[in-house]
């Protein structure tokens, strides 16, 4: 479906362009910039999950844990006064990749509901491990002394720089996922998702492909976690819990599975809803819950599906 594919790319580029222009078009106020950063970071995390679910059929209910590992890498290094990107970034990448490799090596052996359940179990283990780190705040969470530095300079403190850093990372995530899905690797993944037996029959053992996909997805989420810790300058075990993983899945499904633009749209709509609804009533979750239910029941292709149907 080249037409759907083109629409997907077009939608993504439009959204990225709008985000790039936003600070220059009068949306430069602090509260807007905080909102945009949140959108872009969650969009990147949702993209990496969309790559797993849509590309490899790995519906993880523990994706927030991988994101949290990256964020905790920032926090733990911060506690030891190591705050330069040149150290923080490799450590965070290594930590989230290792976490995904260790949990994935076991989880990827299972399928369907069992995969959902085992990723949930690993997510909860990560959550409780974070709660047990009493030196780094334990249950209460950890507040960073400073944002991460870039070669000794405090560029990340600049809202504009941070905005474009997040945008650049989102672009990187999108490019990476799109490239991987279009590659031979991505085609093998889709084949194992659709019919593992047949993929095996033509000579592809699904396990290493699925595991590698899981590690890539987890590492991208870990990187999003690094940005997330910097954006909020605070990290708590709750960010790794299953509710947060559920929210990431919501972004992916709301936006529309099978289209990368869907994850971005889903994340943006999610962040808008969770920011805007509390202004109406303190009991905003009584509105949010039913929106979730209705979206699942009536909007099968997700947001990008609805847009695609109208234009295509």
């Amino acid at each position, binding site marked *: 479906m080249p037409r759907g594919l083109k629409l997907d790319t077009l939608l993504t580029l439009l959204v990225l362009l709008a985000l790039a222009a936003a600070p220059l078009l009068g949306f430069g106020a602090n509260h807007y910039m905080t909102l945009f950063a949140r959108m872009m970071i969650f969009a990147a995390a949702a993209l990496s999950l969309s790559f797993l679910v849509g590309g490899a059929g790995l519906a993880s209910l523990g994706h927030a844990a991988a994101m949290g590992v990256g964020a905790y890498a920032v926090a733990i290094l911060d506690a030891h006064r190591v705050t330069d990107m040149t150290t923080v970034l490799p450590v965070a990448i290594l930590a989230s990749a290792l976490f995904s490799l260790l949990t994935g090596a076991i989880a990827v052996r299972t399928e369907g509901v*069992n995969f959902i359940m085992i990723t949930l179990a690993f997510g*909860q283990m990560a959550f409780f491990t974070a709660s047990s780190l*009493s030196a780094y705040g334990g249950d209460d969470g950890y507040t960073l002394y400073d944002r991460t530095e870039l070669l000794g300079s405090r560029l990340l403190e600049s809202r504009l720089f941070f905005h474009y850093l997040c945008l650049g990372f989102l672009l990187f995530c999108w490019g990476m996922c799109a490239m991987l899905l279009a590659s031979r690797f991505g085609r093998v993944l889709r084949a194992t998702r659709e019919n593992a037996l047949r993929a095996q029959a033509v000579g592809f053992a699904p396990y290493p492909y699925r595991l590698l996909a899981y590690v890539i997805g987890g590492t991208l989420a870990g990187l999003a976690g690094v940005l997330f810790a910097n954006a909020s300058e605070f990290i708590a075990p709750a960010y790794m819990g299953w509710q947060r993983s559920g929210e990431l*899945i919501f972004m992916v499904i709301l936006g529309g599975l099978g289209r990368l633009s869907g994850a971005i749209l889903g994340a943006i709509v999610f962040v808008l809803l969770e920011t805007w609804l509390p202004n109406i009533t303190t*009991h905003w979750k009584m509105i949010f*819950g039913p929106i979730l*239910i209705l979206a*699942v*029941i009536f909007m099968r292709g997700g947001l990008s599906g609805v847009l695609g149907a109208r234009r295509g």
Partner: protein
Amino acid sequence: MSTGLFLVQVLNGLQLGILLFLVAAGLTLVFGVMDFINLAHGVQYMLGAYLGAALAAATGSFWLGLLLALPAALFFGLLLEVLIFRHLYDRDHLSQVLATFGVILFLNQAMKAIWGAAPLQVPVPALLEGGVVLMPGLQYPLYRIAVLIAGLLTGLGLWFLVERTRIGMLVRAGATNAAMVSALGVDIRRLFMLVFAFGAMLAGFAGVLAGPIFSVEPGMGDHVLILAFVVIVIGGIGSIRGAFIAALIIGVTDTLGKSLMPDLMRLFLDPSAARQTGAALASMLIYIAMAAILAFRPRGLFPAKGG
């Protein structure tokens, strides 16, 4: 830890296990028969606790509250099934997870809107006040023993219903091969509605029983829900017997772990760090068990499905 304290912890663990079993029983049947992941099963437990608390306060009697809360919980279960869940049976698991997550958000917040965020206190019924002397100098609350007995009796009744009656036979057959049962002329949707409503009532019953022991507050179902999922995965999806044994194992492991682990950690860490680290590690135990079962024995300890 003294023997007496250990005994108390084991009893507490068994009693948590019994409550977990009441919640997990409905969950495992719903999952087994309809292949439907219902995250909202935990809020049925919360709903039961709130209904029990409110009706007990309104009528002035715990027993009247219990008696009225059960049909009310059943009714709410049916309402949710008709309004929402039946539109989700033929959808993929992620959609089910998501929509039922929406139900959790709504009902947790609704409880907060109606009764406030502060926990409700439910007094222990007068008949069951006081304690039983387990050992010289060691009392155990009578109410908790009553919960244990009530749960065991319910479990026994459930076993009879599932193993010895016609409707139970249909449910078991449905858990084994739903398509075949349907092809043999059984209205599987109606059967499922029955199972669903009954499961909701059991979870509600557990909630009412839990009221005087734990605090009744919004979100109280979330923790129990995840534990119940651990129980049904370990016990084997669709298996009542598996759910019963796994619930007791999980209840005792969780309770003992939480009281023993901090003591164990004190050997390596200073007291306050030991308390926090120990509690977290204890909570992790059951998830390690669940991951191990999924990795090495994915059909659970007591698989329901043959072949």
